[in-house]
């Protein structure tokens, strides 16, 4: 079979399938989502045989499900982004003590920058905290090999294992030889075997802690001599050492090649150095690190997010009384946050290898945001799509609140973009599910304020329900706006419990958000189509005016799930040029050109919301004129 161009996340899916993985579960989050999607695609194409794959309601549910499957002997793969690890950590901490049977690998994607995340947290720290081994790939190819090795290590030592790529690796593509078919490993005969070890009593935890310590020492020694911790040397007795982990190793390798090119061109000898790539940061490969440190006077460490390797080398120096100095994030010799890069590594290495203690005058990375010229092109911020139903929901709620004091608590999803002008309908965003509970805090602190939360349908199931229970139990006067667009839109349209669609094929009965709210005791529940501004505003007003917990469910599909309706048109003779449509809705299909409002027919999705925003009825929408509801052909889950 010819090599295929695969995104690393797709390749990692193949690696797990080749390792015979039985069960794959996770929750979507950039940059991790493609792995589960690839397994699902290969399963439905008949390539990946015998595997079960699912989007679980959240990360904790996914990891706990896998803990059970692993105890039956199944090989298991968990996926999430770095913040998902926070949600799953409750399960991980204990699971490491209980141990596993079938290999259990956690694929956790970190996001230096951050490019699309709330934090720059470092999963290598989680590995250390939970006492679980972690692999840190520098390239897609290395990650592919690590994924297979992770299953072996997991099973050999009975420990969960983390594979932690970062965005640049996750979303890089290269060519891979992949099998035409994969088969899940059969569950061992007899399946689950009862044992005291599966129950985490304090006495057992004490015993297990000892076992964890022992296996970490053994894994450190084994990996120390393994293929993922590589050392290279130029010159016979270099005194300068370079350490890198993750994608920074790839940057350093490129930069070193450039420096050698420079030296060659100038007719000078190549710089002398020793380079260590650390692919298994925890447990730290101390043996390899000691070999590396032999005779060195200076070490510089390149890594993203936290100073994990830097800490290890400082510790090593203390423990073994080694005379080298360590440079990195802690002394400002490398970037203390954000992404590294080739240019940055080049400038810093040039200074380091020339024994020049001065910092490079200006890191190319630090000045990357400055304009090369006086005039900067206008920003192109991400915006809610033309035809996005959230726009109508924000418009309705803002109008229903009117001039009353209010706070709008947002959540994680596309609708965070509602914070931008002209909608300005999101005031806070913390973490998954927090909008509902934060609104309750505002309500307690400031009873005269209208406290509104916005939550997406997928987020509602992932971590919104307990917050609603709290509001009902403690009788907080809040209004929960569920933006039900029938998908997990921001991460690329994944199904969730409210859609009834699963990754295994057969459709289940969708869980009704209205029935869940009703069952939890919410007494005022209204539903509205957000694409009809008046109807939506009336519904919003009813819920917002209700004393006590109330809910509005805004129902209209994500535009990515539906075909466009005929575009709206502007009657130029009727348009008074007030631009109210543009300045209240901010739809990207609208343009103001030569004193006339226009709607770009190629961008307009025909949702018809702008018809209601026009004070002089100058905008017409064909679907409305035909007396039809936009996107009515869409039924939940019937994509």
């Amino acid at each position: 079979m010819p090599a295929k161009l695969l995104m690393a996340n797709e390749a990692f899916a193949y690696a797990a399938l080749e390792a015979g993985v039985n069960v794959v579960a996770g929750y979507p989050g950039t940059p991790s989502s493609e792995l589960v999607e690839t397994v699902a695609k290969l399963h439905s194409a008949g390539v990946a045989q015998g595997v079960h794959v699912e989007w679980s309601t959240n990360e904790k549910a996914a990891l706990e499900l896998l803990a059970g499957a692993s105890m039956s002997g199944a090989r298991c793969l968990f996926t999430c982004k770095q913040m998902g690890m926070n949600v799953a950590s409750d399960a991980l901490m204990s699971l490491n003590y209980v141990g596993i049977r079938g290999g259990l690998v956690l694929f956790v994607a970190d996001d230096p920058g951050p490019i699309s995340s709330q934090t720059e947290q470092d999963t290598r720290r989680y590995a250390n905290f939970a006492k679980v081994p972690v692999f840190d790939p520098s390239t897609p190819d290395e990650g592919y090999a690590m994924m297979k090795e992770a299953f072996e290590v997991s099973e050999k030592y009975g420990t969960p294992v983390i594979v932690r790529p970062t965005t640049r690796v996750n979303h890089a593509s290269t060519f891979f030889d992949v099998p035409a078919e994969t088969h899940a490993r059969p569950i061992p005969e007899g399946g689950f075997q009862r044992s005291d070890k599966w129950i985490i009593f304090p006495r057992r935890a004490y015993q297990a802690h000892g076992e964890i310590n022992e296996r970490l020492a053994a894994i450190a020694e084994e990996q120390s001599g393994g293929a993922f911790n590589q050392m290279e040397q130029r010159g016979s007795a270099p005194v300068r050492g370079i350490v890198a982990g993750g994608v920074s190793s790839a940057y350093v390798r490129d930069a070193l090649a450039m420096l050698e090119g420079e030296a060659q061109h100038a007719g000078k000898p190549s710089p002398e150095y020793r380079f260590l790539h650390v692919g298994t940061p925890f447990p730290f490969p101390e043996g390899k690190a000691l070999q590396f440190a032999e005779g060195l006077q200076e070490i510089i460490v390149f890594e993203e997010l936290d100073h994990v390797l830097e800490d290890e080398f400082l510790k090593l120096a203390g423990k073994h009384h080694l005379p080298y100095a360590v440079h990195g994030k802690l002394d400002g010799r490398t970037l203390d946050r954000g992404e590294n890069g080739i240019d940055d590594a080049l400038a810093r290495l040039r200074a380091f290898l020339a024994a020049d203690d001065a910092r490079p005058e200006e890191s190319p990375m630090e000045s990357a945001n400055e304009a090369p010229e006086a005039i900067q092109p206008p920003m192109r911020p991400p915006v809610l799509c033309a035809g996005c139903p959230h726009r109508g929901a924000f418009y309705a709620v803002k109008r229903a609140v009117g001039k009353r004091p209010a706070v709008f608590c947002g959540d994680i999803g596309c609708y965070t973009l509602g914070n931008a002008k002209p909608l300005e309908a999101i005031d806070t965003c913390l973490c998954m599910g927090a909008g509902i509970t934060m609104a309750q805090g505002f309500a307690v602190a400031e009873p005269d304020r209208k406290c509104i939360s916005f939550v997406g349908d997928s987020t509602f199931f992932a971590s919104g329900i307990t917050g609603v229970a709290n509001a009902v139990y403690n009788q907080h006067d809040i209004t929960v706006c569920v933006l039900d667009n029938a998908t997990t839109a921001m991460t690329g349209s994944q199904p969730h419990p409210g859609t009834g669609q699963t990754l295994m094929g057969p459709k289940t009965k969708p869980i009704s958000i209205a029935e869940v709210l009703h069952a939890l005791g919410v007494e005022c529940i209204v539903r509205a189509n957000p694409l009809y501004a008046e109807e939506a505003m009336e519904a919003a007003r009813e819920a917002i005016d209700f004393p006590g917990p109330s809910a509005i469910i805004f129902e209209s599909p994500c535009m990515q799930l539906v075909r466009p309706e005929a575009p709206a048109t502007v009657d130029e003779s009727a348009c008074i040029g007030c631009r109210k449509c543009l300045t209240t809705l901010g739809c990207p299909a609208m343009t103001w050109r030569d004193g006339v409002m226009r709607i770009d027919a190629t961008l307009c999705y025909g949702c018809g919301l702008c018809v209601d925003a026009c004070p002089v009825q100058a905008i017409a929408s064909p679907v409305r004129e035909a007396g039809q509801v936009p996107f009515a052909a869409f039924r939940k889950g019937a994509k």
Partner: protein
Amino acid sequence: MSVYSDGATTVLLAGVGGQGTILAADLLAKTAISNGLQVKLSEIHGMAQRGGSVTTVVRLGEQVHSMVCDRGSADYLLCFEATEALRNLPFLAQNGKLLVNDVSIKPLPVLTGKASMPKRVHERLGEYNAQLVDANKHAREAGSLKCANVVLLGALAANMPFSMESWEEQIRLKVPPKTIDMNIDAFHRGVQSVASEANRS
């Protein structure tokens, strides 16, 4: 920045979400590997997928370690929109080649009157010896505005060392069967647009 590259060629494709930069990058990667090179391709997306600035990096060569394009290191900067071209100029290498689709897509802050479009765009691009391509016109002539990305790929191909046949082969394998002829036509219009531009100057 080092003037001595690591031996790999870096192509940066920049545009607006939905313009088809990823398909063009995919075709470039596949053509390069069919010519025996190593390839790494990197796309960054997140937040809303439509309407924002998007860039894709393709690095090709005998040996390719990393997958990013730093400032001053794009050997080829292929821009699908003029404002994005201005935004990405700092990434162009000193002797890098700049190819720009001669269209402007206004971002929302401009539409709502909070910002204005840059002035003297052609003049500023001209300072970097940009080759302008009217990809939308060529795409319409080939049959659909949707193949503007393949027109731009043609403009890039005219500057790269791979045979026309190897590009065509990858296009045939990638696009829907009904659109093969149209896309091949669009590709050659792109190749020729650059050739005729070069004759003029």
